């Protein structure tokens, strides 16, 4: 979904539901990663918009969106936070990944594949805020840094959020990831974290015009 560029004075969050259309992402039987990421994106968008935060999404349905298109949408939004949403049957809890690029000073033109390096310090700060909120919500969190094709090219503070099964629930991994209660709990925690990030970024009360 192509959104018009947002003015820089607004607090904007980009939600990138990874995969979609021809690209199912991870899959096992009838379970598809693309469905979980879209459901989480829709749920989180509703929560954020209800709190007055402008949200730009890279897709709103089961459509194929190329990586370059996702990057263009996010970079044109002048967002203060970009979350690339993923899901995996491996591991447990929530995995937060920041780019492994080394930080650099912001420049007028950033190389396409390493544009995130100018924002990595803020991305790590954003990871800290999300980590605190998720732990506060009682969720297991692991933090890491990795080369990620889409995140590495984003100019906003960006993280990949990977949802893995809640191993403490007693449900099967597929049931856990498809559990609306688990998704709602995660979306609530992420929304709370982004509100806190909004306050830290100095956008208190700067809702959409």
């Amino acid at each position: 979904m192509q959104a018009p560029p947002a003015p820089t004075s607004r607090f904007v969050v980009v939600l990138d539901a990874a995969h979609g259309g021809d690209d199912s992402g991870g899959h096992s039987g009838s379970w598809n990663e693309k469905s979980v990421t879209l459901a989480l994106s829709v749920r989180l968008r509703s929560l954020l918009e209800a709190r007055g935060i402008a949200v730009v999404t890279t897709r709103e349905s089961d459509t194929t969106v190329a990586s370059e298109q996702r990057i263009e949408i996010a970079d044109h939004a002048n967002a203060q936070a970009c979350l690339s949403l993923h899901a995996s049957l491996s591991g447990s809890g929530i995995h937060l990944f920041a780019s492994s690029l080394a930080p650099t000073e912001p420049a007028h033109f950033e190389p396409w594949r390493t544009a995130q390096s100018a924002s990595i310090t803020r991305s790590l700060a954003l990871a800290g805020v999300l980590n605190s909120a998720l732990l506060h919500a009682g969720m297991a969190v692991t933090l890491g840094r990795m080369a990620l094709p889409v995140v590495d090219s984003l100019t906003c503070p960006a993280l990949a959020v990977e949802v893995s099964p809640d191993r403490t629930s007693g449900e099967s991994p597929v049931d856990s990831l498809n559990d609306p209660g688990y998704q709602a709990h995660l979306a609530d925690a992420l929304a709370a974290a982004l509100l806190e990030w909004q306050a830290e970024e100095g956008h208190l009360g700067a809702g959409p015009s």
Partner: protein
Amino acid sequence: MIPRYQTVLFFLLLAASILMGTILWQLRNREHQHLLQGEQSTPTQAPQVAPAEQATLMVANDADDSLVTRALSLPLPQSPNARARAILDKLLDLYATADASHPVPGGASPTSPIDQVFLLPVRTAGIAARRAAGKNPQSESELAVVNLAGAFAANHPSGIETESLTVLSICATLHANFPRITEVHFLVDGQQRETLAGHADLTRTYLTSDVAVTRGAQP
């Protein structure tokens, strides 16, 4: 008017040509298959007569997203490339076991999950300066090119964490056993591929120095 015997002769020669062409095509295919099978059957297990040596595996652990050092005694071949491949095969064998800390079923394929490992000198801009300084113009650092088997990549679980742990444990294991390896690049079936199973970037060259810093790092 063409005599009948010439017509018959023509068709006989034509049939013979087609038959010979078919036989040649089959022989070519058979030889090609033999060649491919020969590549696949390159020994990855060291001969048992080789003395056992200490190898260090950096084993991924999904529980805490970490790499755990594990020392093993293995019979290893002398060639550095074969040696690197044998050590990585052992690492991926561990991931294929039932109680693996980082389960990757692809490691259990009947053929080796690693097709080849090539160790190459890293090209540096300071070759002339090194030569002028009386040093070996070749860089002391090495690039490892790890050619993964397509079956291993196809069966690898999808996910950022699981894919990154596999990639980083391979990089860390190579560096632990060959300290000169500073860079690692991945291929799948000899071709560059965008991701391992949809997430971990395989188009970039990984620096082993980054691996040590980033795993377990708290943002």
